[in-house]
């Protein structure tokens, strides 16, 4: 493992495997055409999450890399059906005991709630087999009441909001 000091020494994984950035979405002529209807697609959801997660707090807690590079959210794990108004996001914590899994999941869920039309049913869960307490976390994330209650808790909301503060501003 590489040498490191300061606040990052308690990192859960100091030298994680990285994945190539998929790059900015290429803007197409159809997207600029007033008359074409662009459906909401997987990449769009991914970009919403990707831009979300470039913030200091997550960096501080995890690593100076974005979630995508950490392989926490992969593009393939986002599934949207615009016609049926459903979206499903599967995320993979960096290590099976990652203590932040619930917070990541909650942040993803809140971001989608704020960013998608209300017609969508949003499902956020951990990739099967990648976390020790997978079932418990999934249950919490799926439970509307518990999510709402969590967001009533101002200290939790504070952490979530900090996760959702984009760094560019």
């Amino acid at each position: 493992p590489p040498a490191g000091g300061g606040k990052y020494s308690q990192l859960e994984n100091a030298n994680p495997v990285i994945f190539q950035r998929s790059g900015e979405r290429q803007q197409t002529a159809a997207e600029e055409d007033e008359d074409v209807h662009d459906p909401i697609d997987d990449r769009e959801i991914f970009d919403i999450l990707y831009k979300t997660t470039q913030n200091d707090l997550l960096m501080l807690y995890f690593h100076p890399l974005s979630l995508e590079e950490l392989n926490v959210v992969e593009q393939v794990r986002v599934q949207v059906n615009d016609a049926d108004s459903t979206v499903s996001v599967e995320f993979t914590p960096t290590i099976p005991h990652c203590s932040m899994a619930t917070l990541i999941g909650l942040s993803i869920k809140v971001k989608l709630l704020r960013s998608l039309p209300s017609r969508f049913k949003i499902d956020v869960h951990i990739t099967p087999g990648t976390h020790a307490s997978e079932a418990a976390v999934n249950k919490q994330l799926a439970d509307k009441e518990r999510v709402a209650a969590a967001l009533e808790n101002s200290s939790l909301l504070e952490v979530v909001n900090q996760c959702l503060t984009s760094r560019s501003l």
Partner: protein
Amino acid sequence: MSFFIQSGNIRHVLYTLHKPLRCLQFPAVLFFCDLLSNRRLSLTSSEPQTRARGVQLLSDVLQEDSAALSQREGLSTTFPVPSGLPTFLILLSDPRSGGAHRVLREPPQRQLRGHAARLTGTAGSGNRFRRRTFSSEELLVTFVSPQTRCAALPPGSAVSMLRSLFQDVHVQSLMIAERACVYNMLINLMDTREAELKSLGADFVFGFVQSMDGERDPRNLLLAFQIARNIVVRGYDLGKFTEELFEVTSCYFPIDFTPPPNDPHGITKEELVQALRAVLAGTPKFAEFLFPLLIEKLDSDVQSAKLDALQTLNAFLSRCEHTDTAEFLQGLWSSLRREVFQTSSEKIESAALAALTALTSCLSRSVLSSDSEDVLGHFLEVVLKDCEHHLREPDLKLVWPSAKLLQACSGASYRASRVIAASVLPALTEQYSSKTQCSQRRTLLEVLQRFVQSVKSSRSTEDDDGVLSAHRADLCGVAFAALSESNASLQVTAAALLASLARQTGLLLEADVRLAVDHLTRLLLTEDDDRVSAAVVECAGVLAELHPAAFATRLIPRLKEEVFSDASQQHSHHAVRRRCLSALAAVSTQPSVVQESTPVLLQVLKSALTGGVSLEEAVLACRSLQRIAARVQDTEEAGTCFHDVIIPRLLSLALQAALQEEDSSGRGGALVQEDFLSAVVPVISTSCSRLQPTLAARTASRAVSLFLDGDVSCLPENSFPPRLQLLQAEEVSWRRSQLVCLLMGCVCALPRGVELPRTDELLSRLEEMSCTCRHPLSYTAAAKCFAGLVNKSAEGGALDGVIQRVRARICRELDSSSSPLRTQAFTLLVWVSKALLLRYHPLSTGLTDQLFSLLDDAHLGAAAADGFLLLMSDSPDVLNRGCHADVRIMYRQRFFSENSAKLVQGFNAAPQEKKPNYLKALSNIVNTLPQQVQVTELPALLSLLLEALTCPDQGVQLSTLSCLEPVIASPPPVLLQQLEAVVGRLLALVCSPAMNVRMSSLRCVRALSLLPAHQVLPFRARVLRALAPPLDDRKRLVRQEAVQARGEWFLIGSPGGR
């Protein structure tokens, strides 16, 4: 005088005498002072205030008189600088001398000890002055400070003044202004009396340290830092006070200062940071103190402290010897490494890398001798040990920071490059061949490419081959292997690597270049991926500049063959031809390549005449020619090629196509199109503006005779009838009249100072054509050409006459509402206005006023509003700086400030249906202003802009929104007062039918979220509701804006948000 004094009203006397005293000469002043002091009236008055006034007066008078005297040096013989003055000053400043010094110190019973007791109270600012007691020190300081600027002080006086100052005055208990006087005095003396001050030895440093210890005022700190910097940089003896001087200044590091709002002094944090950095980094003597301090700050969590520490380190290292750093090397390296390995901001990372480069080059300055140890070698060993193994794991995150650290070292010096390259490059090239995954290989290639880039290319000795030569074969092998891969991103990176290798002078052998050219050619012809061809074309451009011969002989013939191959009719082949055309332009920077490439392009155009090539490709060929004209080295060879071959050929082709069309053989179709002609104009104007002025002058005069007389003798291969008519608006067909745009290209882009023959004749023919021709392209081009000439014409009666004649004609046409030629007159009006506005010609106002009045016109109103856009924006083909036009700086701001009131008035007076024209004109003008000007000027126009948001014209909405966005980001108070209206109007637009309007208004809504939370919180619920529908917009780009805006608004007033 004695009358005044005897009148007893001292204050009155002093004020009354202030003015006349300024005119007195020194002796008189001294006499006056003497008078005052003898009579115990002013300087010795027991009334402190009176005493202060006396001294202040004396100080003012002397200051002004010494300035005046030094200006009138000639007079100094009649009025020699009185020897009394300096003596007087010394007396004043030397406590041992008694005498005049008593003037300030007496009466003894008033002399105050305990400095703190001197302020009897400052409560109630109204009577502050009356209640304040001035101490003699303050008086001394304010009095002496200006005099130190006076060069007439006798030798030794500086020393005695300073001794007195340091012994008797406790600087930090003086008021801010007096402390500033002390510092200014020191600065003055350091500038004029350096030798004397240095004779004080370390006492001077100690005195200064005591004086500034505890300074808190930022203005004074700037002065104090300046003195400290002078001390360390100008080689004052620090003696045993090095640490004291360091302590007294470094205690301010890192500077944390936020100027108060509306700070009248305008001191910024940055100024203080720079001033302090200049002190701390000023001398290597600080090394033992500064390094530990910097390492400590680097370990802190405060980002700005880290950044400041890194930048200071960088500045300091450039002054250090390697011996200064010895004991801190390990600590510095681990801090720098940590900052790069675990960086959270790019700024800090790049500052850390820059500091590492500085550190390495500091070590590289060490001289190797047989018995000394190799400091640089040891250091690099440590670096390599910590970083190199990460390069073996190209999947993992630390590969990048490790590569960056090594590159930073390698870029520091030739020696460092050598050591790093010897160790890293073989390992990387070997890994490239052993790894099979594309992503790993790509990472390795990128790392390699950056290494090659970072290597210092300077050679240490003549017979040395440079750092990379030992690795040349391996590196080229990797680059060529990657170019042969099928993976696009590998090819792109390999092309970049190849370009970097080519930039290393003398590295590539002839054989390598040939092989490279073959690879590039193959990729150009076969690879469809846009990213690959862009990278290949760029790489070819770099190589062709350095190795023109290989391109002229290998690449160009191959491309030519491809362009004219039989397969050229197939659809798939068009893409290849497009790439060939753009590659021809990219490689043509050397005249020898241009000689080969331009004939190919001309041949493409020639076949367009017979319909062999489409309009699109003809346009591409022209663009390539223009790119070549803009980039080729301005040699005689290149000039001849363009002025004697290409331009005549282009003119001839256009003319041939026009005549063919008239004969209705109809095959030259592509070349009479506006698109083609607009692509030819920049080829001609670029050549005329930048290649060989003498040849350009010849081109211009040939064009003049061609267009005025129909003299076709200069055109190649022509079978044109003699005395062709081209500029006769009434008689010739549009196909011929539109060629006037080519004339514009020839005559309007000439460098200033190049003479153009028959200008008057040309102007009147162009005027005639622009006013009477019915073909839009023709009359517009004629108007532009006219404007281009007027813009460069010499000031004077002749020009004024031309303008007045044209203006009268324009008015005549515009005034008769039934005239069929009003649009022509309007077009000429806009262009001539622009030509004159750009050069600040006084007659431009009349023309632009005419344009303003047209905003009410039934037919031309909308066009007039658009005309302002033309007036304010750069036109690509004429009247721009590239064409050497007379463009004064800030003409837009000037026009805006002179005319914005007219617009507002016009708007208010205009009938309802004409108001949009004014709003559009306004947004056209405002949009082109630089953002700073917009932000300062717009508050006055805010209500008009809000009005414009409700205007149904989408163009107006859009340009208003783009004006508003920066204004919202730094909102003037007037905007905050109208927030309700702003929010309401913006939200009304987020569901507009035009997607650009929706996006732009969403951006504005997002910008609003950054205003102070208490201002926008009341709108939160309303905005969130209104932003829900755009989340489901049919356009993705709109949704993206909506997501961002809504996300920000959610954070307002929420815990953890804003």
